Structures are given as structure tokens and as C-alpha cells.
């Protein structure tokens, strides 16, 4: 090898407008090395990979600072196709396979082996005939190298997902001149034995001199596979360690880190142990990208329960499932009564309200006034704020104005008045209108999903304080889902960590960073020392 590193990304910085997502990050990968890239959501892993692959989104937003070196030579990667030509391959988290094609056709997609025929001699190589025999023998070779015995003529459609993952890998290996492979969360969909097989395949590949960047949230796999580990947090490089110099606990700790002081300080108190307000038993939710696979938990009256976990692991699916916004299954009891899933109005009628994570999509009617937004659900579900005139109903303007003014005062919504359009408010105030709408339902139980997403620090504080006040003063039971652990820790009584659609553990807010880090990677704190993966 001429150069020490096959890939060097030196001092990479990237801003989207005002927002710095990567700040002076350096990643160096040696040939034949398995290099794990760790970090929470928003730590900058995907942006870094977008830079590496020359994704259009990077170039469209003003490029990046810093330099990329391949084999010690400075290069610029202009497009994903360019990256492919330069020997960088990607094994996607979501399969890039065509279901109607055979394994061979998928492996050889757009790199078909062809024979010249008399037409193609005239009209160019696009009209060359496919040589299926040569294609399938090459595919066979690639499949063998990842230990797959599956027939190369099988259609991808109907294959187990684990197989698809290996077909993806086989496709990348089959590319000639491949130097660097990026595995993006490759084990997320695999069974345990498949994941083990994958790790050994990765080691085989690395042995042949191909470097691997391994993005995962499973720390135990990192320890099993990686030679070196780079950790990012908040767009900055935390550290780069060799495997032998670190431990799983340290990794978990580094990944989470302390992100400043708590935003809201609450009086420490005993965790409420009253009646069970919400009992969830074996909940399954088919929310694309946030699937929940059999979660059971209890929420006690008067408590604030936080639900945390990495993006895509199912934490958002829980409130959306209980509210029946997505297809859900399981036994849910609310204040001792059974809640029938399948229709959102059931949950609303039972006194559960939800502040959605999708503020602009399902939360707010942006072209309507604040007051209309506040009473909308209550009017539709409970028929409140309406005047009956014979068979017709009319909005009761006075009642609506009164409740809106009260909410504006209570929640400190900064606006010109109740008739201002919701779309013209700032993000934090929009969020408060969403909360006001939920409160107008006079709920007994409140789900708050990602309440601080996309709003500034001052507004975050106000929203969190509002939640605490609702809880302390009105005794409202609140379940808050958030990607920001610090936020959960500052106001929750207990924090439930979800990974891969399943409940890992329920931790007190004062638990250590390492415990949270381990739980987010799916390992129950306290169990990792026994070396076992949580089942």
C-alpha cells in the first residue's frame, strides 16, 4: 500500500444555512480496517457520509469545508456515481434491490456483462445483449464470498430480509476496484445469527484489503467487529480510539456526553406511585420507520414518563399507536377502561390528547387563526363550542374567543391576538398552540411527541416549563417522547429507553450517561458485563 490511509476526511465542516452540522471533523480509515462510526441522531454521521458520497444535497447547499483524500491523494467527489467509480461502495440501510429481478440481475444491475451483436456494433453498447451465463457465474462468486448458498436465479421478491442484506453486500463486493465499503446500520434488520454471520463476513472482506466504515448503534457489535472507532457528538469529533484502548461502557459514555446544564430545573420528588393511568400490553405499531414490536409498560397517575431512544427505533410509534394514528395492535387500558385501537376518536373520547411531532403536517392548520386551531379538535370530537340552531350548528364565537384568550394568557403564546394565523407564529409559539389545542380537549392524559423539535432554546425552555406546570398544578399525567435525552432527564420522573421497537429498560433520570448509552444501543445496563445481548 502506498498510502497509510485509504480514506482521509480532514477538518470537514458543513453548514446548512445558520446551522452548523459538522464542525472540524476528521475521519481516517486504513486499508483493510473496520472502522466504526458512532454517534447519536444528529451527531453528523449521515452528513459526513453524504459528503463522502458527493450527494447532491451537499453541493446544492454550498458544499463543505475541509479536504477528502483517497489513497493519500486529494480528490473531489462530485456525485454518488463518481464515488462508485472511485471505489467507494455503500450497503444501504433500506435495501436498494429490485424485487422483480433475480439475485443475479440485482447484483449486476447497471454493470451487466454483455455480448456485442450486429445492432450494437452500429448503435452503441446500450444495445448489447446480456450474457446471463457470465453474469450469474460472477454473481455466484460474489455470493460465495459472503457465504450465501442461495440460488443466483432466485427472485429477490419474497426473500427473507436477512438474505437481501447479503445480496446487497455481494453486489458491492462484485464491483471491481472497490476500496472502501460503508455499512449503514446493516444489522438492524437481521436476526442474531445473521448479524453474527455478517460480522464474520465483514472481517473476511476487510482481510482482502477493503476498508469498511461501519455505522451502527449496537455497541456490542462495534466491540466484536471494529478495529478503530470514531465517535461524533453534535457535529464535533469526540475521539478516535483503537478497539483495545476502550470499553463498551466508555463508548456509551462518550456517545451520550453531557450537553450543558439542564434547561429546566424541577424540584426532586418521589416518583408518583398512584393508580395506573395507562396500561400498555404487547403493543405493535406499523408506523413506517418507527415500528414498535411488542412493548408493555405502565404509566402512573400524576407522573411524567419520558420515552427516549435513537431515531427510527420506535419511540415515536408508541404515542402514534396508542392514538391509533397508525395501524396498531395490542391491549391498552386507560384509567382502568379498555381502549379499542383502530380509530383515533376512541382515544380522544377516552380523554387522551396528543401533541404530534409533525407540527406542520397533522398538528396545525397553518392558514387558520389561532383560536380556530385551539378549538378545532374539541369541536370535531366533543361538539363543543357550537351553537345549535335547529338542525344546523354554528360556531360559538364568544366561547371560542374566551377559551383562546385564556390559553394565550396561560401558555404565554406570543401573538397579536387570537385571530392571527397560526402559520405566521414562530416555531415555539406554534408548539404552544398545539399544546393549547390538546388542552382544549380537557384531557386527563397527555402525549407530547418531540415538543422541542425545531424550536430555539428560549422557546424550548418555555414549552418544557409549561409541561411541568400542567403536571404539578393540574395533576396531568404526561408521556413525553423526545430525541433529546437532556430534555427528558430534566423533567421526567422515569425514562423509558426504546431500541429496535422494543423496551430496553426504564431508568431514573439520574442514571449515568453510560447507562443511557448502553440502553440506546439495545443493551440493558448491568447486563452487558455478562456478555449477553438483551433478547
Amino acid at each position, binding site marked *: 500500500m502506498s498510502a497509510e490511509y485509504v480514506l482521509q476526511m480532514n477538518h470537514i465542516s458543513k453548514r446548512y444555512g445558520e446551522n452548523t452540522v459538522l464542525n472540524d471533523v476528521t475521519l481516517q480509515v486504513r486499508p483493510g480496517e473496520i472502522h466504526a462510526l458512532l454517534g447519536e441522531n444528529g451527531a453528523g454521521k449521515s452528513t459526513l457520509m453524504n459528503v463522502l458520497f458527493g450527494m447532491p444535497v451537499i453541493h446544492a447547499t454550498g458544499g463543505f469545508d475541509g479536504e477528502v483524500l483517497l489513497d493519500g491523494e486529494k480528490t473531489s467527489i462530485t456525485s454518488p456515481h463518481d464515488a462508485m467509480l472511485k471505489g467507494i461502495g455503500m450497503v*444501504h440501510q433500506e435495501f436498494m434491490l429490485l424485487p422483480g429481478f433475480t439475485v443475479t440481475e440485482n447484483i449486476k444491475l447497471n454493470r451487466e456483462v454483455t455480448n456485442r451483436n450486429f445492432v450494437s456494433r452500429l448503435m452503441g453498447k446500450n*444495445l448489447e445483449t446480456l450474457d446471463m451465463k457470465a453474469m450469474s457465474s460472477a454473481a455466484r462468486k460474489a455470493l460465495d464470498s459472503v457465504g450465501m448458498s442461495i440460488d443466483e436465479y432466485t427472485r429477490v421478491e419474497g426473500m427473507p430480509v436477512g438474505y437481501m442484506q447479503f445480496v446487497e453486500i455481494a453486489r458491492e463486493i462484485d464491483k471491481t476496484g472497490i476500496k472502501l465499503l460503508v455499512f449503514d446500520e446493516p444489522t438492524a434488520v437481521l436476526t442474531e445469527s445473521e448479524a453474527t454471520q455478517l460480522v464474520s463476513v465483514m472481517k473476511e472482506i476487510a482481510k482482502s484489503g477493503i476498508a469498511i466504515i461501519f455505522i451502527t448503534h449496537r455497541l456490542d457489535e462495534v466491540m466484536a467487529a471494529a478495529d478503530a472507532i470514531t465517535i461524533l457528538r453534535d457535529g464535533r469529533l469526540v475521539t478516535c480510539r483503537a478497539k483495545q484502548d476502550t470499553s463498551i461502557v466508555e463508548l456509551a459514555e462518550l456517545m451520550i456526553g453531557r450537553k450543558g446544564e439542564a434547561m429546566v430545573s424541577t424540584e426532586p420528588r418521589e416518583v408518583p406511585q398512584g393508580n395506573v393511568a395507562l396500561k400498555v400490553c404487547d403493543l405493535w405499531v406499523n408506523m413506517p420507520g418507527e415500528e414498535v414490536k411488542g412493548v408493555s409498560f405502565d404509566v402512573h397517575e400524576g407522573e411524567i414518563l419520558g420515552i427516549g431512544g435513537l431515531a427510527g427505533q420506535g419511540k415515536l410509534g408508541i404515542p402514534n399507536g396508542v392514538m391509533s394514528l397508525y395501524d396498531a*395492535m395490542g391491549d391498552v387500558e386507560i384509567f382502568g377502561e379498555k381502549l379499542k385501537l383502530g380509530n383515533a376518536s376512541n382515544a380522544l373520547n377516552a380523554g387522551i390528547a396528543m401533541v404530534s411531532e409533525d407540527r406542520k403536517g397533522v398538528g396545525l392548520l397553518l392558514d387558520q387563526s389561532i383560536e380556530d386551531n385551539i378549538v378545532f379538535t374539541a369541536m370535531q370530537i366533543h361538539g363543543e363550542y357550537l351553537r345549535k340552531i335547529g338542525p344546523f350548528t354554528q360556531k360559538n364565537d364568544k366561547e371560542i374567543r374566551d377559551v383562546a384568550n385564556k390559553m394565550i394568557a396561560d401558555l404565554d403564546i406570543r401573538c397579536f391576538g387570537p385571530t392571527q394565523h397560526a402559520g405566521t407564529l414562530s416555531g415555539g409559539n406554534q408548539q404552544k398552540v398545539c399544546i393549547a389545542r390538546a388542552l382544549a380537549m380537557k384531557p386527563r392524559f397527555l402525549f407530547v411527541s418531540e415538543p422541542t423539535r425545531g424550536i430555539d432554546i428560549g422557546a424550548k425552555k418555555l414549552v418544557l416549563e409549561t409541561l411541568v406546570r400542567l403536571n404539578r398544578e393540574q395533576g396531568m399525567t404526561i408521556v413525553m417522547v423526545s430525541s433529546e435525552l437532556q430534555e427528558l432527564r430534566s423533567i421526567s420522573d422515569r425514562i423509558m429507553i426504546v431500541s429496535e421497537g422494543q423496551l430496553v429498560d426504564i431508568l431514573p433520570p439520574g442514571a449515568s450517561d453510560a447507562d443511557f448509552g448502553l440502553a440506546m444501543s439495545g443493551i440493558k445496563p448491568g447486563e452487558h458485563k455478562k456478555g449477553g445481548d438483551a433478547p
Partner: protein
Amino acid sequence: MRKFDWRTFLRNNAVTVMFVLLCAVCLLYSGQSASFVMYELFGRLSRNAFIVLALIIPIVAGMGINFAITIGAMAAQIAVLWVIEWGVSGLPGMALAALLTVPIAAFFGYLIGKLLNKMKGQEMIGGLILGYFANGLYQLLFLFIFGNLIPLKAPGLVIKGSTGVANTIDLSTERGFKYALDGLLQLPFVQAMYILFAVLAVVTVVLLLLKKMKPVKGAIYLIVMAACVGLVQIPAVADIFSMVKVPTVTFLVVGVLCLFNTALLRTRIGQQFRAVGQNRTVANASGINVDKVRVIAIMISTVLAGWGQLIFVQNMGSFQTYGAHEQVGLYAGAAILVGGASIRKATNGQALLGCVLFHLLFIVAPAAGKNLFGDAAIGEYFRVFISYGVIALALVMHAWSGVQKKKNAKEALTT
């Protein structure tokens, strides 16, 4: 043997089965003789099959039914006008028109493809509306530009004292090319069948000897052919086909197009069509230029549609200058759907079967309507109603097939 499930078969082939039944009923009530129906059917097949086959490539490329083939037909009609103006008649005229159609249709196809790339997912409605829009430009061209700004000298193209190109363009004059292709070789049905089978048998045997075909398959082909030859020896069967004169060269051209479709899908670009048709994101990720592939698919389809329209007009002998192209997309689209194609999947066989069924209904429906309701217009009404109905049904069934797969949350996540 895999168990044959009637229900699945019916569900997957509902349109085709319905059409077979409908044709059978109409055939029964039409009171037309089998030989007349066959005569009509072969005539219609020869002039319509080509244009239906032109729809296959865009379907495979995931763009649905290319209703914009109307524009290909317009391109052909522009070519015809100029060939008549120059007075090139007969087969050379036809060949010149075909040659002239290529650049015009390819250019239009390029523009259509560019536009459809801006409206991915709505190609069918886009193509349909584009056809209507292009009709306006076509009229401008034929009413105002040709004959006025660009004078036409050929007799009959412009009527004295009026403006624009005449309502009907006649190909049966000495300047036209009526039957240029059809008239090359007209054979009685039985004779044409013998020739076809002789060629097929030789090919089969050669393939068998080269071991490129499974012996069982080859044997079945040979036996079926032998059985057909046996059947036409029966006078009653031979009688059905007695009136049929097969325009052999035209059918040969249709056959070549079938081979072209098959061969094209086995090339690199064919693989790209199929990949883009299945999933644009995946195709793009593997470095395929999705937009370019889609434009090529539409260009091929538009040129083929133009040639199809040429075959149509040379058989008809004349065409309505301002209307001949209008229904082309609709009828061809309905025909291919009747054959069992969907807006995602289509084969040569489906296109040809659809053509047979659709036009069989066209032949027998008016007579059946007259016998049943006392009015031929009712049969006519039925066939128009049915062609729209078939397209609507195919679209609804496409939407249904997605809904059927729905399971409950737990099953969806565990399987």
C-alpha cells in the same frame, strides 16, 4: 403439479375473462357468419396490432400506458402529407413516409419524455392531456401553416376556395400508397399458415438440435402446429377462414416488432427499462440515468406508434386529417389492457390477445346491438362505453392489488 386456483386466476385475469364472455355473447347474437367475422378480424388485426405493441416499452419502463402515442400518429400523418405532396407513391412512398416519421416522432417523443419526467407518477394523465394539447398545434399546422404559409401543390390536398388541408387525405389515388404493404403478398389463410408453421418448425428443430430449447417445450410446439394443420383439413374449419386473405408482409412486420420488443428487453438498455420501471430510486442509486432511460422509452414508443399509424392508413386507404389520430391512444390502451396487461406489466402475447378480443367486440357489437335492441347505435355505444370502462377497471384493479396486501400491524412486522 401446482394446484390451479380458479379464484386467483379469475381475479388476476378479470378483464380478459369478462371480455371473452362478452365477445362470446355478442358473437352469438350478432348473427354474423364465422367466416365474415374472421375476415374482418384479420383485416383489423393487420392494421391495429402494430400500434398496440408500441405501448409495451413504456409500460415496462414504469410509465404506464403511453397515451401520448396520439402524437406519434400525428407525426406519421405529417409525413404522409408530404409524401403525397411530393408524389412518391406505392412502396417507395410508404418507405419514405416511414423514414420521415422517424425524426419527427423522435423529436416529439423527446419533448414528451422531457415533460413526463417533470410529472413522475402522473405519466398517464399527462400523456392524455398532452395528446389533446398537441391536437391544437396539429390543427394549427394543418389549417393554417400547410396550404397557406407553405403552399401545397398536389391535387386534392387543398380544396379550392377553402383554407388549410382537406378534411380527408386520400391514399388511393396514384400519388398515394394504399395497400403498399398489405398488397405485397396476399395469401389465403391456410397457405399463410403453412408457410408460418414451416418456418416455425424449422426454427424449433434447429433450436432443439442446438440444445437451446427444452425438448418437452419443442415437442409441444411441434404437436400444436401439427394439430392446427390437421384441423384446417376439416372442411367446416377451413370454411371459417375461407374469406380471409392474409396480408403476409404486414403480419411479418408485426412479428418483427414482437421480436424487437423481446430482443430489446434482453439488452443493457432493456435491463435499464425494467430496473427503472420497478424502482426509480434503486435504479438511480446504481448509476442509471433514470430520466434519460425514460425519455428513450417514450421516444421508441412514439416512433413505433407513428409507424403503426402508417400501417393503419395504408390499409384504410384514406384518413380523416383532423380526427384519425384522436382515438389512437385510447383504443390501443384499452386493447392492451383487455389482453391482460396491467399498467405495470405487459407482454407481446397480451398485446396481441388484447387486440384480437377488442376488435372482435368491435366487429360483433353493432350487429348484436341491432339484433338485441333493434338499433346498431346501441352496439356502437357499448363498444365506446366498454373501451373507457376497461381502462377505468384496469386502473381500479391496480389500486386494489395494493390494498389486498394489508395485514394487521403485528403480522406486517413479523413476516
